[in-house]
């Protein structure tokens, strides 16, 4: 009887230790968000969103140039990456046994694990080294390379959730294969695909490493993808590692804005996909 008591004690003790682990694991999130709000919220005002940087060392200025730059770079990355990712995803879901589908699926998994700095270097040798100048477009290409496998995998997973009876019904009614895929299957999976795209956008919008030697960063307002462009994550990096007190202040505020955007996108996407998966079981 005594041993039984001891074993129960150990069992309960381990549960307590694991509960403590949960508290420890949640703490970094609260600490990071808390620090961001405390140090960043005070600097967010109209000037922050509408002005461009003042000369180094002076106080004031904003990050309007980086907001525009991020929109340009990520927008162009979507234009390049989404058609490729989505069509590859539809291919892998609609022809699952095809050898090309298997190869693509495996390589997409490998690509998802590729460090983003390596992708940045790839975009440098591919575009910047050939054109002999940095450009926002090179940054977009790097981000597109990161987006393709993410979008492809979510598209594939969500199309697989579409009940086969829908396909069979459409084919039985004499729909050709392409209309079945596009009008019935893809349209049923569309909300899920859109949330997958949002998730991918949230991921790449916060990426810094692929932009370091492609988009490079800039102090000026510009919408020219052929020239170096600023981006919010690059601003955080430059300002955080710079020597000026006012830069640090702006780095916190920029990081806060960046994280609000990224978190809203990914929370929305996650909630939407979770509902869809739950319905399926």
């Amino acid at each position, binding site marked *: 009887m005594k041993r039984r008591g001891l074993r129960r004690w150990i069992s309960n003790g381990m549960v307590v230790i694991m509960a403590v682990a949960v508290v420890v694991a949640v703490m970094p999130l609260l600490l990071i968000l808390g620090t961001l709000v405390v140090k960043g919220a005070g600097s967010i005002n109209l000037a922050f969103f509408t002005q461009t940087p003042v000369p180094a060392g002076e106080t004031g200025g904003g990050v309007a140039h980086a907001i525009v730059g991020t929109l340009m770079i990520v927008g162009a990355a979507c234009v390049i990456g989404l058609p490729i990712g989505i069509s590859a995803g539809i291919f892998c879901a609609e022809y699952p046994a095809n050898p090309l589908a298997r190869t693509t699926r495996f390589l997409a998994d490998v690509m998802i694990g590729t460090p983003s700095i390596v992708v940045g270097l790839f975009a440098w040798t591919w575009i910047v080294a050939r054109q002999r100048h940095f450009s926002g477009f090179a940054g977009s290409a790097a981000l597109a390379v990161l987006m393709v496998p993410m979008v492809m995998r979510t598209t594939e997973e969500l199309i697989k959730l579409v009940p086969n009876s829908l396909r069979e019904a459409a084919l039985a009614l004499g729909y050709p294969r392409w209309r079945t895929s596009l009008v019935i299957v893809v349209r049923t999976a569309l909300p899920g695909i859109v949330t997958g795209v949002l998730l991918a956008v949230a991921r790449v919008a916060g*990426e810094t490493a692929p932009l370091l030697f492609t988009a490079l960063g800039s102090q000026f307002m510009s919408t020219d993808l052929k020239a170096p462009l600023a981006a919010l994550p690059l601003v955080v*990096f430059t300002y955080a590692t710079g020597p000026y007190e006012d830069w640090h202040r702006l780095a916190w505020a920029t990081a806060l804005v960046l994280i609000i955007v990224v978190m809203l996108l990914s929370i929305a996407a996650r909630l939407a996909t979770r509902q869809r998966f739950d319905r399926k079981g």
Partner: protein
Amino acid sequence: MSEPVGAVAEAAVPPSQPRIQTGLGGRSWADLGFRGVLTLGALAVPLLMAFLVWELWVGSRLAIGRYGLDFLVSSAWDPVAQQFGAVPLIFGTLVSSLLALVIAVPLSLGVAIFLTEFAPQAIRQPVAFLIELLAAIPSVVYGLWGIFFLIPFLREHIFPFLRSALGFLPLFQGPIYGQSMLAAAIILAIMVMPYIMSVSREVLLAVPASQREAAQALGATRWEAVITAVVPYAKSGIIGAVILGLGRALGETMAVTMVIGNRHEIAASLFAPGYTMAAAIANEFTEAVEDVHLSALTYVALVLFMVTVLVNAGARLLIWRVTRGAPTGGQGL
């Protein structure tokens, strides 16, 4: 439905047989065109990968030709004298990543086991969701937080405490700068935790309830049931989750370069600054002027890429074995 969805439709219209062409006449061209467009998209992925490897190879050819495999065993890094060796970078990458796992693995497994086996139903999803949110925070924000919050905190409280308590170990000796291998490992641990946690949780959820019931019916306490019947069943999947975390840590760039101190040195002390492969590329690439320097950094990227490919492929294989219900060698019972 255990068969992959789409298999039936695939069988109804086998792509290799031109039945649809003869049967449906003119519409087949639209089908072929549609399929052609999709095939182009699917082809883009292998082509991009091949192109990436090719570009890295071409870019590093100069360094490979000059240093060969000595690059991987030499520790010189002198751009002026054109001497390059990657040992401090490889050392720093491995040490920071493994140390991060030492911190993150017990924590993430504890959370995963607690959330699948013990926690009240109501808090399971929300807590998992909160921790998974960590994965959404951009790397550069971790770096910012590391510079201005974590490092001062470690420098003033944790590091002096560790030095006085464990100072007899060479790991915890020497001057405290703040920017250090240990700071990088802690940041990395926070960053990989959500990945390890959420994949192990999925794997644990895939363990059949009969495993737990059988152990408890034999008189095991709930903890004993977990340790003897649930975790062994999920073992290869959990190892896969850990390796996946390792892959993340190895390639992590911005947060690491902002807190590790960026020095081409190998130090015994965890308080000393170090360097990683990814951090060196991020830091030196824009400043490199010599072709050899650029080429050496591309060589580093090629090595990093190959390592992460191997690590990730291994992880996927292990996770796939458990979640697809493939036999795990009778270690279940």
